[in-house]
Structures are given as structure tokens and as C-alpha cells.
């Protein structure tokens, strides 16, 4: 059986500054597939609709993965399937953003705090207002489909250890600089992979607010992922909910926090 979990909580710096939560996460489960997403809308003032951008990124990923037909892997090569997934998610996100702008044009109130330079950038690329990262995983027919754009974390879980699905290099962006759905070359930085679920116990995804307080991957696994899985496998999902709220509002680094998790559970017959 598959267990799954997703949760977002606002961070204390956003509460302090009277800002909305810019993270968004969601989950979906039916007889054949399980999907979770975590998205982190950017916090700079030019990204003033990033709370919608992250919601649209989750929604786009959900709808593309929900209608994904895995028999495509019999017809197309793996790289083409992954390319198609990335392209469809980006197109869907762009369509949602364009529709929102058409229905709710930017108001003077939203843009009044922007500098001339920022206004120019926004005019050239209105998508910028919705800037967000995206992580999504789907368990389907013994495979785990992974899509990722921007910072945060995505790890495969195996025998109590975790391993990055996509390894960052020392040349990649760091310190709150991230690749984004709103970039013109978003496709170039969008990563996708298919893992064999038989070789792993599951996967965890999160936004940077969740992982950054842990400084290194081993500590993140031992102090966060392992205890979370332990709680979830005992059905104590309210304890995990409570901890996520505490991590955002009290003990973390002040940023919004999101977590998504899919784990195989051979011993139990119910899902979280």
C-alpha cells in the first residue's frame, strides 16, 4: 500500500510582516496513482502574486500527472516522455497565469511599491509576478515520476537513508536565489526523472523553508524525515501537522514550510 502526506504552514517572518503564505502543497490519491506537490512562491516585492503562482504550479502538475498515460513509455523513449511532462506542466501553468492576468489585471495598489526598473521587467514579463518553484512526485504502476524546478528538496528514501533525486552542483544558485517557473528559460532548468519504486521505499519533497534549518542532508534525514515517517506509519498524522505548523511559526527560519511524502507501506492496509 501507499501512504501519502502533504502540508503547508506559514512562516513567522510572513506573519510578522503581515504577508500571506506563499507556499502551496496538495495531494491526490486514487486506485492507480498517488501524487503530491510542494511549491514555493518567491518573496520579493516584484513577485506580488507568487501565492497564486505556487497554487497554479501545484494545480498544473496535478492535472498533467492525473491525465498522464504511462503506456506512453511503450511508444516513446524515456527522454521524450519526460520532456513532454515538463512541457505540459509549463504550458498549463502559463495558461493559468495568463487567464488570471486577463481576469484580474495588475492593479495600481499591487504595483505602486515597484521601482521603474521592476515595472519595466514586469511589463516585459508579467509571469514574473507569479514566480514560484515546483516539486511534484507521482507513484504509478510501480514507478515514481519526479518533476522539479527550483530550490527546496526532493529525495528518494531507502533503508532509512535519503538521496537527492537531482544532485545540485556548486555552480547552481544558492542562498535564496533559485530557478523559477516564471523564467523564460524555465524548461532548461526543469528536471524530470522516473524511478523504479521497487528499488526505494518512497520519496520526500519540500520547500526550502522546511529543509534549510537542517543545514545538511544527513541531519535533515535523521532529525526530520525519519521521525516524520515513524509518526506517519503509526497513523499519527496530526502530530506531523502540528510539527509542520511549529516549524513554520516558531522554530524554523521564518520562511513558509511545505512537505510532501509518498511511502510504500507493506505492513498496513490504510493510507494517511
Amino acid at each position, binding site marked *: 500500500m501507499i501512504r501519502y502526506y502533504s502540508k503547508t504552514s506559514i512562516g513567522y517572518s510572513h506573519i510578522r510582516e503581515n504577508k500571506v503564505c506563499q507556499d502551496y502543497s496538495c495531494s491526490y490519491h486514487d486506485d492507480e496513482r498517488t501524487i503530491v506537490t510542494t511549491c514555493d512562491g518567491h*518573496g520579493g516585492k516584484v513577485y506580488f502574486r507568487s501565492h497564486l503562482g505556487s497554487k497554479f504550479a501545484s494545480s498544473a502538475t496535478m492535472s498533467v500527472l492525473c491525465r498522464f498515460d504511462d503506456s506512453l513509455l511503450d511508444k516513446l523513449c524515456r527522454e521524450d516522455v519526460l520532456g513532454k511532462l515538463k512541457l505540459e506542466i509549463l504550458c498549463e501553468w502559463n495558461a493559468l497565469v495568463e487567464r488570471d492576468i486577463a481576469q484580474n489585471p495588475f492593479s495600481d495598489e499591487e504595483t505602486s511599491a515597484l521601482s521603474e526598473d521592476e515595472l519595466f521587467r514586469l511589463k516585459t514579463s508579467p509571469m514574473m509576478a507569479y514566480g514560484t518553484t515546483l516539486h511534484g512526485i507521482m507513484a504509478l504502476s510501480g514507478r515514481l515520476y519526479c518533476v522539479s524546478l527550483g530550490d527546496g528538496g526532493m529525495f528518494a528514501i531507502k533503508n532509512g537513508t535519503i538521496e537527492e533525486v537531482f544532485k545540485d552542483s556548486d555552480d547552481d544558485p544558492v*542562498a535564496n536565489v533559485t530557478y523559477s517557473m*516564471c523564467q523564460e528559460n524555465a524548461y532548461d532548468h526543469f528536471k524530470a526523472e522516473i524511478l523504479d519504486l521497487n528499488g526505494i521505499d518512497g520519496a520526500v519533497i519540500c520547500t526550502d523553508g522546511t529543509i534549510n534549518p537542517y543545514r*545538511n542532508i544527513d541531519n535533515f534525514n535523521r532529525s526530520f524525515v525519519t521521525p516524520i515517517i515513524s509518526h506517519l506509519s503509526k497513523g499519527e498524522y496530526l502530530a506531523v501537522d502540528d*510539527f509542520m505548523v511549529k516549524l513554520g511559526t516558531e*522554530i524554523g527560519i521564518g520562511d513558509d514550510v511545505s512537505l510532501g511524502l509518498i511511502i510504500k507501506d507493506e505492513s498496513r492496509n490504510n493510507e494517511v
Partner: protein
Amino acid sequence: MMQDRMLGEGIARQELNLLFVIDNSGSMEGEKLGAVNNAIRDVMSIMPEIQEDTSDATIKISALKFSDKAEWIYSEPQNVEDFKWKDLSAEGGTNLSGAYDELSKWLTKRSNGGMMPDIGGVAPIIILMTDGLPTSYDWEKHLESLKKKGWFKVALKYALAIQIDTDEAMDVLNKFTGNPETVLKVYTAEALRKVINVIAVTASKVKSNSASMGVGAGAVNGNALAQNEIASKLDEVEDVEW
């Protein structure tokens, strides 16, 4: 066997690194290096207060000296209270290539042998001080490799040109910071002491208090804020030009 941990354990504040890169070649002998030594001691006497006032980040201090070769004063970044300054003495050439190589290694993730956190962290502050042209002819090649590092790209970089005024020397420093507004010509020992103090203290204060601001694509936490505040404070210092 590793012990199980409870939720809530293992959480740490973000790390803010402040790094001094100091030319201690023969030409720095006398009042120039004396001013650097005094300035860093001044800065370190103020740092505990800054650390106490911030809840967002732990400030870590490092120093790299370079003459014929580049050498770290401490092998690891130090907490504010553990960093004790020992006066540098001047000798040898100006091997900027060696300094860039060491900096490049330092700006690598800990899991890859460097000093930057694997996860999270605040863009570091790097202050380079020199009084002349590099004696290592291939410094540009070493700078190109340094510039590829993600942590170098986001760092708040200042360069202090100590009593030098040639276009060629300024070009070396402009290429390091990538921004002429953060390259300062300093003409006297007293001005040098004040400038180091203003940059190190102001940048640490502003950046450590903005460590929890999420900013997103293309922006860097607190760098612009720190730069503005430093510029306004430097207006009051004489014998400095930028």
C-alpha cells in the same frame, strides 16, 4: 548505532560568513598592514554585540592572507567569540591566483570539501584588501573559475584599493566585485581602519537580520540593503573614493 531523533531536534540558525581576504605582500609593510590589523581587531570587538542582537543567523568569521602563497588564518570559519586576531606581518609577492583558488575551495559545499553549508545559508560577505597589482600573471583564469561558484555569485563583495590609483590595478578589483560601486580607493591608514569597520559591521548587522527574508529568483538576501547602508555611512569617512 545512530540514535533516533525527535521532531524539533537538529534545527540550527542560518549561517552568515564574513571573510577577510588580506594582501600581506612586502609592499603592505608598515602603516598599511598596521591599519588592517587594527581594523580587524576593532571589528572583532564589536561583533559579539551584533551576534547577540540578531536572532536570524549565526555569524562565522574567516580570514585568508596571501603573499607568495595563500593561507587561512583558521582552517574552519570561527564563531564570533572564538575568532582571535593575530597581527599579520608583510613579506613576499602578491599571489592573487592562489587566493582565488583558496576562495574557490572555501565557497564549495561542505559535502564537497568546502566551507559552505550543504543546505540553506546566507550569501557571504567578502572583503578583499590589496595595495598593488598581482604578481601572479594568470589571476584572470583563476577568477573565471571562481566566478562559476554559486556562492561567489551571490556574495556581497567589496574590494579596497589601498593607496593605489592606477587604472590597471582598479581593473583587477572591478573584475573581482563585478561592480565598481563596491570598489573603494582608500588613501590613508585611518580611512582604511574606518572603511573596514563600516563594511564588516554594517553588512553583518543588516544581512544577519534579513536572513529569514525569502526573496526568490535573481535577488540576494539583504545585499542591496547592506550596500545602501554602507554607502551612506562611507559618505562620512574622509580620504575614501569610489
